[in-house]
């Protein structure tokens, strides 16, 4: 064929003229730049939060922030900045959420991994996971316009905005996280262990709760921790449905403000930049960031541990 003598030469000349080599050398660097964006993001978050947090703590003592109990950032005469009411509300809503998500999520996981046939699991699991994909603003709307009025039929004392209803809805949102990750952890418990228990005359229930769950416990705990960290960071549901009372209370029928909702209030609210109230938002955000970071690290640690078990 006419060209044939040339292919080698063509390749040779192309190689000599190629600018590819130079370009190739730059690629790892360019990719590295892209990869460093994520580090920059973290750095950006830290710097953003740190600067203003430092400014905040120049005006407000650690003691006041962490140990006193009043949060009145904009009070004209006697502003007070204690994170405790916000922290209390956050922990309370998270607690309620986990109160819903842990039993429902865990038993769902038990059902999927221990009782359900393969076919049922393959249909049911993705369906349950749909719950995790619903935007939180929709959950907020649902909590505010449906769940609260619904609950008020049974609990007349329930305020129009309260921590109970968003807590429950947050719990529903977290069910798939707990169910799906716990199910993963439980399915990776080897079948031979299940058989061992069955052969002793254990019922499925006894196998699940006395063998499989203990064996998968670190994975399950990791799923709880991830759920908790989601609940702590959740913003729109509480912003819409839990109101803005900054009282330190444990009455779940009352309106309360979580850390995230506080940030929303202040960013879209009345505190002028440069005021202590404005900086307080960063101090709260910093606390939130550190909190969720610790949670995520812990969850990672737990997941790793459970991978190493058998």
């Amino acid at each position, binding site marked *: 064929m006419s060209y044939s003598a040339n292919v080698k030469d063509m390749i040779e000349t192309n190689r000599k003229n190629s600018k590819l080599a130079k370009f190739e050398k730059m690629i790892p660097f360019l990719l590295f730049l892209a990869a460093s*964006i994520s580090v920059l993001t973290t750095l950006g978050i830290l710097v953003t939060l740190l600067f203003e947090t430092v400014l905040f703590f120049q005006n407000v003592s650690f003691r006041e922030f962490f140990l006193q109990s009043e949060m009145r950032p904009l009070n004209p005469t006697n502003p007070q900045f204690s994170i405790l009411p916000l922290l209390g509300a956050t922990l309370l809503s998270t607690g309620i959420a986990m109160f819903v998500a842990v039993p429902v999520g865990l038993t769902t996981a038990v059902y999927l991994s221990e009782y359900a046939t393969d076919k049922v699991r393959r249909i049911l699991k993705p369906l349950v996971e749909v719950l995790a994909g619903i935007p939180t603003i929709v959950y907020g709307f649902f909590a505010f316009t449906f769940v609260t009025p619904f609950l008020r039929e049974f609990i007349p004392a329930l305020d129009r905005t309260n921590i109970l209803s968003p807590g429950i809805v947050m719990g529903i949102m977290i069910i798939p996280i707990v169910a799906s990750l716990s199910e993963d952890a439980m399915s990776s418990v080897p079948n031979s262990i299940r058989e061992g228990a069955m052969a002793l005359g254990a019922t499925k229930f006894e196998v699940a709760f006395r063998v499989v769950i203990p064996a998968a416990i670190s994975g399950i705990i990791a799923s709880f921790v991830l759920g908790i960290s989601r609940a702590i960071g959740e913003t729109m549901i509480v912003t819409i449905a839990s109101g803005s009372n900054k009282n330190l209370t444990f009455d779940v029928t009352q309106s309360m403000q979580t850390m995230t909702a506080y940030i929303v209030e202040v960013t879209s609210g009345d505190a002028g930049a440069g005021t202590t109230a404005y900086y307080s938002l960063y101090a709260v955000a910093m606390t939130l960031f550190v909190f969720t970071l610790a949670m995520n690290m812990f969850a990672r640690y737990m997941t790793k541990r459970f991978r190493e078990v058998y």
Partner: protein
Amino acid sequence: MQYMDLDAVQSRMTKRIFFNRLSKMLFLASAFFGLIVLAVLLYDVVSDSIGWLSIDFLTSLLSTNPDIAGIRGAILGTVWLMVIVGPVTMILGVCTAIYLEEYARPSKFTTFIQTNISNLAGVPSIVFGLLGLTVFVRLFGLGSIVLAGGLTMSLLVLPIVVVASQESIRAVPAHLREASFGMGATKWQTIKNVVLPVALPGIFTGMILAISRAIGETAPLVAIGIPALIIPAPSGIFDRFTALPMQIYYWTIDSVMVQEYAYLAAATIVVLLLILFTLNSIAILIRNKFDRRY
């Protein structure tokens, strides 16, 4: 010596078996609990939206008058937002994944990047909002335009794309790579011509998940300050805008002034959910279609 009293065992047996059956039913109910709530939620928003959701609603501009208000601006705002989020996360996410999977040597720093990415995935979205406010809106002086919102959202969903892309690049079989290297292809040629095409379906699935997340996120937009009333639909990335979830947010909290706003919010939610379900179906289709072994 006999420890097991057969009669006692026998009588407990009935109880245990009953309990097992009961719990099986309870667990099944619990597995359905979430689905029931989902159904109630859908029913709630859909029934609230009836009479309000119409073609006019989709194509009209925003108004303070609920009878003529529409979400054309919000839809376009969301679309423009995705015009930023799509390419930015795609490029950054895939590049990061390629770097980590193909170029980075195992080192403390690589581990650090990796840990950092999975931690970022857990940072509350409102904190990303503050980052966007400080960096894009204020520091870069962009103001609350589509570009600023899009970049903020991109950073928020970046970890989703990175992790999905990494997994899918890792799943590309070594023998395909070897084939390409064996032909004298350079590393980059191999990545571009062999690895990425094979990894693409997985990357796309990750992208769709990321976009779905970005479409529904509200808190970062609240933080960067989206105007409550903005009537003209945005026509580019430098315009100010509103987006579907923001409109839901404002209408929900403003329903105290005008009750009908609650129905508008519900109608908007239906639109938002339809978009999300469509996206997710596409993701599932892609996954099924390309779930091929090499």
